[in-house]
């Protein structure tokens, strides 16, 4: 850990932060009660975590091929991961996977029933 330049130390700090958020994300994946809540925790935290790691790599390695690849990857994740979360949530709702008992309101279900 010695003789690191300043940008490398900052990079490592961001990477560590990213990993911690990754960890919270998967913890949420295990702990939360139903698929929608899990999606909430997992998508947000893991996306942010991985983007953090990639940003850390960018800062660590500066304006090199590694850095730009990391940025490309980060942009891609930021764009696609909410979309896949949306696709899964919609599909799960259409497939009739129940929300947890703690749910207080489900307007989507009501609207779907109205349309029929």
């Amino acid at each position, binding site marked *: 850990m010695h003789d690191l330049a300043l940008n490398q130390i900052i990079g490592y700090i961001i990477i560590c932060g990213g990993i911690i958020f990754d960890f919270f994300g*998967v913890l949420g994946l295990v702990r939360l009660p139903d698929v929608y809540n899990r999606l909430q925790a997992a998508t947000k935290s893991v996306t942010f975590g*991985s983007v953090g790691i990639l940003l850390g790599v960018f800062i660590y390695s500066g304006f090199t091929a590694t850095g730009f690849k990391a940025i*490309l990857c980060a942009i891609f994740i930021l764009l696609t991961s909410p979309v*896949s979360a949306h696709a899964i949530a919609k*599909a799960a709702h*259409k497939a009739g996977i129940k929300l947890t008992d703690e749910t207080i309101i489900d307007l989507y279900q009501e609207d779907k029933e109205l349309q029929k």
Partner: protein
Amino acid sequence: MRVFRWFIGLLFIAAFFVMNFVVFTEIPFNYKLINVLLFCSLFILIRVVRGPSVADRIVAIDILGILIIGVCAILAIALQRSYFIDIGIAWGLQSFIGTLALAKFLEGRSLDA
């Protein structure tokens, strides 16, 4: 009961972190980070094996894909090779497509319509 389980889990996680960062000092720091990410994938395995519904498993595989991009990135700076990020990018791109296919199928539509 819930608090009790929370406490057991906390002990488990704390044990891992202590082992990783305090006890084993000879492992380089980068690899300790990878250890943490692999530990995370253990939770994903739990969700895959237990997951009551199909959607839970889809979430798990999607998250696994994003998680491993982090592993690739850390390997890239640990080994000083930029092509590990290539694999990470491929991983991100393709796992998105895989998730879309699974979601589309779960929705009850055939893949081509």
